């Protein structure tokens, strides 16, 4: 057994695992905890498919190692909504902010982080906030409309 003990609060529940200190948070979530809502695509921090929140801030789970998030509070897409859908999720459904859906969990976590910091973002701020998330399907139109629906100011 691995001597290193990793403890965190994941989606509100305590988690404890014996893993390598350098194991990536992405693998911990997907393989060890079965939270496959967080996606894997480039594994080098470029695509944003793996975005989760660590202590309320967005991180690329493929770049965070176990020892770096030990003791942290992690929120994944599975933990975003309390009960009903979160308003960002609702907006993605209404506006067609996804197609294949593979980028969607990471995208929604980035949108949530953006809106937490900037509740009424301008178009430029939306573009800045989401430039670390690649979507190959939608051409981003539906995503922009969804964020604007959540409070993004449609001018500018």
């Amino acid at each position, binding site marked *: 057994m691995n001597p290193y003990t990793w403890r965190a609060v994941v989606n509100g529940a305590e988690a404890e695992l014996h893993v390598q200190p350098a194991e990536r948070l992405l693998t911990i979530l997907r393989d060890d905890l079965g939270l496959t809502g967080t996606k894997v695509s480039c594994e080098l921090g470029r695509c944003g498919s793996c975005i989760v929140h660590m202590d309320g801030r967005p991180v690329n789970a493929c770049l965070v190692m176990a020892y770096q998030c030990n003791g942290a509070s992690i929120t994944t897409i*599975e933990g975003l909504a309390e009960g009903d859908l979160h308003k960002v999720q609702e907006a993605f459904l209404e506006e067609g902010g996804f197609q294949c859906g593979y980028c969607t969990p990471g995208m929604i976590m980035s949108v949530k982080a953006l809106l937490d910091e900037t509740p009424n973002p301008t178009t430029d701020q939306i573009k800045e906030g989401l430039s670390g998330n690649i979507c190959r399907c939608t051409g981003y139109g539906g995503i922009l409309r969804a964020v604007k629906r959540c409070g993004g100011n449609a001018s500018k």
Partner: protein
Amino acid sequence: MLTRGERTSHKWRRRPDGPDKVTGALRYLTDMSLPGMLHGKVLRSAEPHAFVLDIRTAKAERVPGVAAVITHLDVPGLNRFGIVNPDQPVLCEDRVRYVGDAIAAVAADTKETAEYALSLIEVDYEPIPVVDDPELALLPESPKLHEGGNVLHRTSYRKGEPEDAFAGCTHIVEGTYYTPRQMHAYMETEGGLFVPEADGRLTVYAATQHGYKDRMQLSRILGIPEEAIRIVSSPIGGSFGGKDELNVQPYGALLARKAGIPVKLHNSRRESVRAGLKRHPMKIVMKTGIDGEGRLIAHEARITADTGAYSTLGAPVLNFATEHASGPYRIPHVSIEGVSVFTNNGVSGEFRGFGGNQAIFAVESQMNRLAELAGMDPWEFRRLNLREPDDPGPLGQRILPSAGLLKAWQSIADSEVWSRRTRKPTESEPWIKRGVGAALAMHGSGLGYGIPDPGGGRLSLTKEGKLEAAFSFEEFGQGITATLELMLMERFGCGADDLSIVIGDTDRVPHTGSSTASRSTTIAHIALSKLHPQLSERLIAGASAMAGVAAERLMTGPGGIWIKPDDDSGSSLAATYKELAETLGGELAFETKFDFPVTPDPIVGGHYLYTCAAVAVEAEINTLTGAVRLLAKHHAVAAGPAVNPMGYIGQIEGASVMAQGFTLTEDALMLDGHYKTENLDNYIVPTIRDVADDFTLHAIEELPEGDPYGPRGIGEVGSVALAPAIAMAVRDAVGKWVNRLPIPREELIESFASQLAGKTEGAGAT
């Protein structure tokens, strides 16, 4: 314009697969796992071209935790795959032809163990000179990749006497165009779960665009009957053609059968880049002539496609490029020749647009240059030369006449974006230049004449009382489930909860062909037009007997069969679907089979149905950095009714941005047969920052009178005309012709000194 609004509100629906996608609950096939499963890894060739002298796996086999190691010796059936012509080794015996060639594979208890074991497999190579240029590959002294030489396929189409006709032309334009090795870059890389079942069957959970074709290919490789294999192929995290051919399925299947334990495989991005398909890079040489009035007289095209190491759909892609190399114009004299050449550069294959994108970039660029020589507005030049609805198709074949082309042309002429070509705003900085461009295209749907293109479908009332539609399609994001739901709700007047839609599972769906070539929507429309009256009649007859009401007074509706309202009463429910199912005591199913409509003329690959499209763009070029920024896009698409407006808009927006990448940034670079762009850090896919703020979509929904084919596919057509439109905008802005994609930024850079000089002059200083 097609937007969310009053006109579309009744069809603007949340996708049925939406809730699971936005909550992360959806299990993609690469998210699946089973207790005790093994992890598979594939050893790919270290050399782009070599003889394999020896493969030694003993050390790998001894690693604790390794359950199975396979090489070509472990392939019981045909050690080859390929949709059309199986020439790609599942596991190479004695020769490798690209860096994605598979040599061995391992299944072990963890991914790390599997990777470690792969590192212990020893392969002795004897390198062969790398053939990485298709033109050099055609020289007699080049090493031959295959027994038949380096030519996969040749095409030619001819009408009139082009050679003579050029002599009489007033203006002739000669151009050579190059297009990139674009990567599909679906966000979900290839992978899946392979499960040997207790009854001896094998279940394959892995993405493909044609489940039945995978089943056939795997049965050939495994040497077992097709019925012994079940392919579950949906949902998929993006494909765009890239997952149409087999990828990891043979290895997962072989390992799982050898180990007798479920095996999971999931490519890393690097593995995906290395082994996966790309769009064919093409070199297209064109010569086109016009008379004194600007009428097209003669056109010649020579297409050289780099098809990489193996066939897959390289031949049909070249057929398609050939068919689309003369554009939607009347040209009396035409000669088009194409050659698709084997090289050691990866494998090129099926990709959204299917060879049309490359050809359309070239032919539309020719039109831009000719218009300028003729001193004409480039859009008026196209109008002058436009084909008429009843003209034969581009290969001389009969096609379904449609007014869509002219309407798409008109849409651009009337557009706000195009109007800015003459009314230019003043630029803020001297190094920022604005330009406007547009392009026009028609794009074939279906696989074309001479290629089996079976369609069909099944519609039933299930035992549980659901109206169930079953097709062998896959959902890879395009929204086929949403489209089917809307089609069924419209026909039955029922609710979404009355429906069950079954796709992507060879055990549960009839063979209705592939989810490719913009064909599924048309297939679904034709199938439901046949099946809906049959089922609906039986349901009504059943309800009529149950309720004692004449059939004429009944109709299908939400929850069941309703008595139509008359003067003194509202409608009332005669029987629920559930009651009907119980009374009928079992499933009531109707099935149909037909082929996708093709031209009656025997011209291989020739299409009958076309979607017409046009696009206008406004771009801003920074001549200090060479960056091209798109400000506005106007797409016009003539594809019949927009059944699913949310899906329609999304397909055009998505295809358009993908085409923007093709034009401006995307190229999987290779050097000596090795990829230089190995991941998304240097393979540049457009991000949200690159999106034009002003986007309009004009959906031209009219169909010809009495048209039986219904809505045309729109999955590809948004991607085919953008590149030449941007090229025209660049010419308009900075006076440079573009002949290479992605547009080399360095060609657009002008020295700061010359710009300042230009500004000084413009300002009227001495």
